[in-house]
């Protein structure tokens, strides 16, 4: 493990911002801290950086407990949420700062800064001040500046938050590529799950100061361990009682269920492909059709419950009010804290993946 958090607790006054946080990040990995606003992501990042001191527990970097090592001596690169570029310094001076502080030779500084400015594609902007740059350019400067002193660990707090949606998407890819190129261990904070899924090797889900789950994006998506994760990840409708549905009669009563769009299939009653599954379907009426760019999102009323599903544009057109056959493959049933997958009983023995 390159970075480890061991039983970390942190209070602000009597507010518990981190409760017994434990996790480890292996060298070279890119990990996302994902969670809703105010869940404690920034606090965790700042404790790793040494900008905030935990009340108890150990921060371990490269096998060394660094609790008593000041932020400036931890050798960590940090990209701040609003970049915190030095506004009275040019782009060049911003990137050179860390090297100057370490009293590097002028020649060395120059070549390193030039190398980094080229790496992030800001050639020709060395003499500009931060307020003469676009959001995306500032982000690149912040990134280059954090990398300049050659840190072994890079921490990024919402690196894309201040950038508009389109550029954000571009920058995500860019950042992932850059980090892969530099080969640096990195942890970044985000509250955008698309971002986490797209960029990170592993995701750590934080909620109310607690670590809910850590795993690969796929694991988190397929096997949510807690009810929070099941609700937080993906688009999901939470239903109060699902036990009335065909194939789910043996569900425990009075428990909440989560149905994601991809758990639901809707087809016309004359559909040949799904003929063999007709016995497991309920009847639903289309209440709403929303165009989502590359697909349609249908909202169907089934047994008085609203379910949604995504429909490819390649399939036959449907209209609001039309009756459809609705098949639910599986649901998550939520306990107090856990989430459990339940499959449709009537589909036993059917190879759904082959459909």
């Amino acid at each position, binding site marked *: 493990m390159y970075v480890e958090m061991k039983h970390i607790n942190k209070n602000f006054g009597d507010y518990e911002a981190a409760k017994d946080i434990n996790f480890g990040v292996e060298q070279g990995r890119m990990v996302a801290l994902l969670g809703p606003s105010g869940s404690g992501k920034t606090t965790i990042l700042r404790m790793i*950086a040494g*900008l905030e001191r935990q009340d108890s527990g150990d921060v371990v970097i490269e096998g060394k407990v660094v609790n008593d090592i*000041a*932020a*400036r*001596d931890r*050798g*960590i*690169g*940090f990209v*701040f949420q*609003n970049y*915190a*570029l*030095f*506004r*009275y*310094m040019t782009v060049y001076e911003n990137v050179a*700062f*860390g090297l100057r*502080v*370490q009293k590097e030779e002028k020649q060395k500084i120059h070549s390193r800064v030039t190398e980094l400015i080229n790496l992030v594609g800001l050639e020709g902007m060395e003499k500009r001040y931060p307020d003469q740059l676009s959001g995306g350019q500032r982000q690149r400067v912040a990134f280059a*500046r*954090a990398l*300049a*002193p050659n840190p072994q660990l890079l921490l990024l707090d919402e690196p894309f938050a201040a950038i508009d949606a389109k550029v954000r998407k571009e920058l995500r890819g860019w950042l992932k590529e850059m980090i892969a190129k530099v080969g640096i261990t990195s942890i970044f904070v985000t509250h955008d799950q698309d971002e986490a899924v797209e960029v990170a090797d592993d995701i750590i889900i934080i909620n109310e100061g607690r670590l809910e789950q850590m795993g690969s994006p796929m694991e988190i998506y397929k096997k949510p361990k807690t009810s929070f994760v099941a609700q937080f990840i993906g688009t999901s409708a939470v239903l109060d009682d699902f036990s009335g549905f065909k194939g789910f009669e043996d569900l425990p009563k009075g428990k909440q269920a989560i149905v994601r769009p991809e758990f639901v299939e809707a087809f016309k009653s004359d559909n040949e492909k799904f003929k063999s599954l007709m016995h497991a379907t309920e009847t639903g009426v289309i209440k709403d059709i929303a165009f989502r760019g590359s697909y349609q999102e249908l909202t169907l009323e089934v047994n008085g419950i609203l379910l949604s599903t995504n429909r490819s544009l390649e399939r036959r057109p449907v209209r609001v009010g039309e009756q459809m056959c609705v098949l639910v493959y599986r649901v998550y049933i939520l306990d107090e804290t856990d989430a459990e997958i339940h499959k449709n009983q009537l589909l036993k023995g059917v190879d759904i993946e082959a459909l």
Partner: protein
Amino acid sequence: MKNQESMTMESSKNQKGAGSGEGKLARCLLIGISVLFLLIMLVFPLVEVIYRSLKEGLKMYGDALTAPNTLSALGVTLIAAVIALAVNTFFGLCAAWLITKFDFRGRQLLSTLIDIPFSISPVIAGLAFIMTFGRMGWAKPLIDGVNDLFGTDISLVFSVPGVVLATIFVTFPFVSRELIPVMQAQGSAEEEAAAMMGAKGLTIFRRVTFPHIKWALLYGMILCAARALGEFGAVYAVSKARGKTFTLPLEIDALYMAGSADSITQAFAVSSLLVIMAIIILILKQIVEYRGKREQ
């Protein structure tokens, strides 16, 4: 920040004025009132000072300025102002730094305490000094102890050190009050970024914090100096020896109170000295404001 505010105020005023005749009238009226007020309260009295000081001719003016009492007062005033400026600049920086960059218990209290000289009468401050350090004050034995130890003869009341202390007291909020809003608006992210790159406290201050606050700092120092030169009440309480511990404002008062035609003219001559200093400070202040604004 102050500048921005006044700028937006001006532009909104202009918009209103251009819109309606009523707005135009109101604007003229407001300008008229302000100008009249400034003339009566400020310009006429100042012109009067200069006029009176020169009324008896340049010889008289020169004599008044070179009288031993005046020179002594000028010396004391400058000593007090320079020391107060140095001490309060340092203290103001520390206090503003502490209040804006650290989170600790009692921060609010400290912030309020700093403002005390603004809210209590300077005379009370002076009297409080006498009570504390004077013959019957509780701190008197302490000072005596120090004097015995070092063989010195420092006395804090009715002496130049007392004048300096009183001046420091009344002027200490100026620097920190100018710095706090600027430093608060800046936050501590840039400092933290510098720290993450390995910079130490002094480097961070010199390279990151200082460029940001330098105009506010200069502005605060100018206000502090202006007040230090002109302070009367607090100094009056701790300074009783004309020709030894009097500052310019006290000397002016003494000359004026003497009541003869000559001494009154002398009072005005000495006053003109303070007015000239004030004008220099005002010009400096304008320059600082202008440059600070341009750099934003």
